């Protein structure tokens, strides 16, 4: 008899409502001591499938086997009992507690808590697999990668043999990613089985032993990583050959549009978020902004859009007709009227820019509802705009009267970006424009940005995927710890150089 699989899924089906089939008879096997990547575009059902393993969802059909035995996972607790631990994309940690306190949170221990023992056990785990973690450090003092470490150790502490990581590298720098991968490999070598959900192909090739691909809720197949290439995996994911080239044209009609001069921004709590940031954005160019998330990217764009109060420094706008205005002294509405548009896609997508419970029409008029002197709103222009955006960007929606929260992430994003682009802005700022989009939609958005650039807009783009920024942008500004750690020419620089700048000036503790 062969050794049983650590996990085997047979014909798992999960429906949401009567129409959406998130998983359609999915098969999956995880061997003991291997790293398996689950690859698929957004909406392909990766996370749903894993949520069934971690007890968050319950499958409608199909069987789950753990170590060869059929099991029923009805709650996260069942999942824990079976030795399955999931590390979610959004960390579930309590800021004011220490790492050790977070790790034991929710466990039934002896009635008298012995923190010394707990810490000893944590140190043993971290030493064994090569984590870098101080159990006494408070969560609010930690970087994103340290928080992730806490989440992983938390799962290991509970005795998990199977670890599921949902997009673990989305928030990490290239250097941190390398470190994470090293730890994961140590764990594998110690006999743990690991599943990584991701859509970054390079990482799949780097870390995993085997790859299973999902497409539109269906299981496409599995391949040994050594037999796979970026092209072959993409084809499996998308179902057809796609070209992954971004057409980067030469900047034309380059003029200075926005000048940021030594701005400083503090948060409400008094934390210095931006320090002496200066740069210029030019028309006909795409300026990329790179950096680990939470290093001031959001605040920088908000400052230009007038949504963030700046402590010192100034922001100037040189209009195409030569007039100069001081954005740093203007209100958001006035800045918007200058044709400076911001499309910010926050992590929850709907947090800013769109109103989830409202339909497409009402969302289209969010920036323009005040037009006219009448006390009531005119819904005809936004209706027309909504129809245009839906048609031009191929938004999948039952109708333009559907609340946007019912749409998938990609479609929501198209609506947001579409609305901001619709009026041909002179300055277009986008943050994470392709977050969570499938490959085809991502490239559609890149093309839209390029189109705006060719029309002479000054485009500022905050991005997550360095590979893409390197291909899309003309220049890349790197933020680290709220400072500009460098501005590089995207055509000549390397990913490593930018990666170094991302950690530069901050110093890893």
């Amino acid at each position, binding site marked *: 008899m062969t050794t049983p699989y650590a996990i085997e899924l047979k014909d798992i089906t999960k429906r*949401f*409502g009567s129409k*959406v089939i998130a998983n359609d008879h999915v098969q999956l096997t995880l061997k003991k001591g291997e790293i398996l990547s689950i690859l698929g575009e957004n909406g392909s059902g990766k996370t749903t499938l894993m949520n069934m393993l971690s007890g968050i969802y*319950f499958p*409608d*059909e*199909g*069987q789950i086997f753990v170590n060869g*035995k*059929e*099991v*029923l996972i*009805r709650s996260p607790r*069942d999942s824990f009992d079976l030795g399955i631990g999931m590390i979610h994309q959004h960390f579930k940690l309590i800021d004011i507690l220490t790492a050790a306190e977070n790790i034991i949170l929710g466990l039934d221990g002896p009635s008298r808590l012995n923190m010394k023992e707990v810490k000893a056990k944590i140190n043993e785990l971290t030493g064994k697999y090569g984590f870098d973690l101080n159990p006494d450090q408070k969560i609010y003092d930690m970087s994103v990668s340290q928080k992730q470490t806490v989440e992983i150790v938390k799962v290991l502490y509970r005795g998990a043999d199977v670890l599921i990581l949902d997009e673990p590298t989305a928030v990490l720098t290239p250097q941190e990613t390398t470190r994470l991968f090293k730890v994961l490999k140590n764990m594998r070598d110690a006999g743990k089985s690991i599943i990584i959900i991701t859509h970054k192909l390079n990482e799949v090739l780097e870390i995993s032993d085997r790859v299973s691909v999902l497409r539109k809720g269906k299981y496409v197949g599995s391949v040994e990583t050594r037999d796979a290439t970026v092209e072959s995996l993409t084809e499996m994911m998308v179902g057809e050959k796609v070209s992954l080239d971004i057409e980067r044209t030469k900047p034309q009609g380059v003029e200075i549009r926005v000048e940021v001069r030594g701005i400083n921004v503090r948060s409400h709590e008094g934390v210095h978020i931006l320090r002496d940031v200066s740069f210029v954005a030019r028309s006909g160019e795409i300026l990329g902004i790179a950096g680990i998330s939470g290093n001031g990217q959001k605040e920088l764009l908000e400052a230009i*859009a007038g*949504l963030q109060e700046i402590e010192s420094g100034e922001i100037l706008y040189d209009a195409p007709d030569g007039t100069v205005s001081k954005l740093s002294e203007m*209100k*958001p*509405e006035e800045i*918007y009227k200058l044709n400076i548009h*911001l499309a*910010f896609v*926050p992590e929850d997508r*709907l*947090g*800013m*820019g*769109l*109103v*989830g*419970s*409202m339909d497409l029409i*009402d969302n289209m*008029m*969010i*920036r323009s*509802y*005040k037009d006219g002197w009448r*006390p*009531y*709103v005119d819904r005809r222009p936004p209706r027309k705009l909504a129809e245009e955006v839906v048609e031009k960007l191929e938004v999948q929606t039952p109708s333009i009267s559907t609340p946007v929260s*019912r749409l998938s992430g990609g479609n929501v994003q198209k609506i947001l970006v579409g609305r901001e682009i619709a009026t041909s802005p002179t300055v277009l700022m986008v943050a994470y424009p392709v977050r969570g989009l499938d490959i085809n939609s991502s490239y559609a958005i890149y093309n839209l940005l390029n189109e705006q650039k060719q029309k002479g807009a000054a485009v500022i783009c905050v991005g997550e995927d360095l590979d893409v920024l390197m291909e899309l942008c003309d220049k890349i500004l790197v933020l680290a710890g709220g400072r500009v750690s460098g501005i590089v020419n995207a055509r000549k620089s390397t990913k490593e150089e930018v990666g170094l700048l991302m950690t530069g000036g901050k110093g890893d503790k």
Partner: protein
Amino acid sequence: MNKKHAAGGSVFHLTKRSSISRKKAWAIRFAAILLSLLVCAVFIFMITKQNPLQVYAGIIDGAVGTNRRLWVTIRETMTLLIIAVGLTPAFRMRFWNIGAEGQILMGGMMTAFMMINFGNTIPSGLLLVLILIVSVAAGMIWGLFPAVFKAYFNTNETLFTLMLNYVAIQIIDFCIVYWENPKGSNSVGIINAGTRAGWMPQVFGSDYGLNVIIVILVTILMSLYMRYSKQGYELAVVGESQNTARYAGISVPRVMIRTMMISGGICGLAGAIIVSGASHTISTATAGGRGFTAIIVAWMSKFNPIAMLAVSVFLVFMQQGSIQIASQFGLNENASDIITGILLFFLIGCEFFINYRIERKKESGEG
């Protein structure tokens, strides 16, 4: 087979519905109403040993049996409706105004103040107009406090509005000392019983006709305001996400304060309708918990004005009816509260089944 997990023959679990057709949702609500009536019937039967059908006949008789009872039911329905309408903009803005009681009391207090002090000096028509204005203003001020503090200091509006209810009750207590009539009764008595000064005049041959007109008018205006006005759009955006509101160039503090003034103002108006248009007196029980019941009315109706009217009618109908059967069968007043409680339990409980579905999974595999 894993024994631990396969103990039962089948597994029940809850799933959140992604969507539900309007028809199905109303079918569930209707079923809940029928169920609640059934449980009420069992309850009534248990304590009265009477034929439930007879008891229900008593309820109907109590609510609409005579012209007078019918008008009382209408009056109470209108009062509940206008409070729910007043709460609507605040709740749409996700501002948890549970201070309607206080806002009603302040409106009622100013109404009583005007009636007592100017009943003999200002002509009746003008007095009524003034009463409406000052009662709205009083409610506005009572709504303004929590809004200002929330807008500028991010205080918790739930606690703030709740506490202001008690402040309002204390103020009324204080006023009763001055307005006591007759002396030593510790109550205000019917104000201007002889002159009817400051009382709402008869319309449609009823004392309460004007109540109906005012409430229906306010309801229609509010519904138009919420749906078509720029301000209504703004407050919905603020309610959904303050970040988005700021992004859209909406001044969040301004919208918050304005909306709460509207909400408080309408509740203040409700106070005027109760004092000037119904009870003609003031006491700490003038609001009578309706500021809380209206929260349920507003939420259950999803702020739809027609649904709010329907829910108000149903609740008041049952309340008035059970007051009647309580006296008919020699029960005390709590019986009517219990019946209202049963109704609300089912009506609120059914929302759970509108949002969730119970699924049954058969054990797979042959074991």
